[in-house]
């Protein structure tokens, strides 16, 4: 690799750090943990840069490294975030069944209730603008699975935030998808 392409890669990576941080933050919640994850991603990306196809999407490649790193960390040690999410979700659903309606929460809280898979799907599609095909490829799942994750995530958010039109979504409970590290 020439010095030129090294500098090139360096600047390309630098330009994408804000996106990596935002994506990491939506996966693990805590800002410092997210930044650790981004640093780890950058090191891994640098080491394995020979395997990157220059004709392909660098951001997608980096995001894939980041989420794989996150998931393997998650499998290794259970993040406290995971437990927190579960608790919050449980509280919310208990309220729901007791009073027939639940206290509405703002977007940030509602987002935190979603599973990691759902948060990831929403961010990739809804915030980063990846296509369903790209996102499915990055997450190693079927396109249909990606679509259903996005739909469930949106439905859950609408429910928690009390978005009016959610009434039309029907009274049926949306089953809570299994978390990545659960079970």
């Amino acid at each position, binding site marked *: *690799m020439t*010095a030129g392409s*090294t*500098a090139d*890669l*360096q600047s390309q*990576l*630098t330009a994408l*750090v*804000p*996106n990596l*941080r*935002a994506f990491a*933050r*939506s996966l693990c919640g805590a800002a410092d943990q997210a*930044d650790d994850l*981004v*640093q780890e991603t*950058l*090191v*891994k990306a*640098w*080491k*394995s*840069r*020979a*395997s990157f196809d220059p004709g392909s*999407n660098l951001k997608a490649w980096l995001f894939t490294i980041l989420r794989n790193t996150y998931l393997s960390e998650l499998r290794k040690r259970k993040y406290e975030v995971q437990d927190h999410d579960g608790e919050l979700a449980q509280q919310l659903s208990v309220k729901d069944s007791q009073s027939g309606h639940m206290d509405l929460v703002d*977007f*940030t809280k509602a*987002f935190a209730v979603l599973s990691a898979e759902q948060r990831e799907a*929403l*961010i990739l*599609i*809804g*915030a*980063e*603008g990846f*296509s*369903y095909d790209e996102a499915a490829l990055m997450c190693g799942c079927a396109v249909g699975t990606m*679509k259903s994750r*996005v*739909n469930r995530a*949106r*439905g859950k*958010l*609408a429910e928690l*935030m009390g*978005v*009016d*039109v*959610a009434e*039309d*979504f029907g009274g049926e409970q949306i089953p809570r998808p299994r978390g990545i590290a659960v079970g």
Partner: protein
Amino acid sequence: MSDEKQSDEQMRQEAKVVTMTPEPAQEGGLPSEAHGLIGHQLREEYRRVLAEPLPDKFTKLLEELARSEGQSTSKPESKE
């Protein structure tokens, strides 16, 4: 239709960081208003983090990686 969608996709790819246009609400089971509101808040929140100033540690780390590349002549591993 799909061509149109694809070029739209490409345009968005390129202009992604600057402008994030709302997704057309056609895929979901929810009415478009929900996509509108939820999608809007999602992008707002994401943009807020995107706009945060970048801590030095990241540029330093990348400089360090680039420097170590210059010093060592070892071939990059094909697999990490």
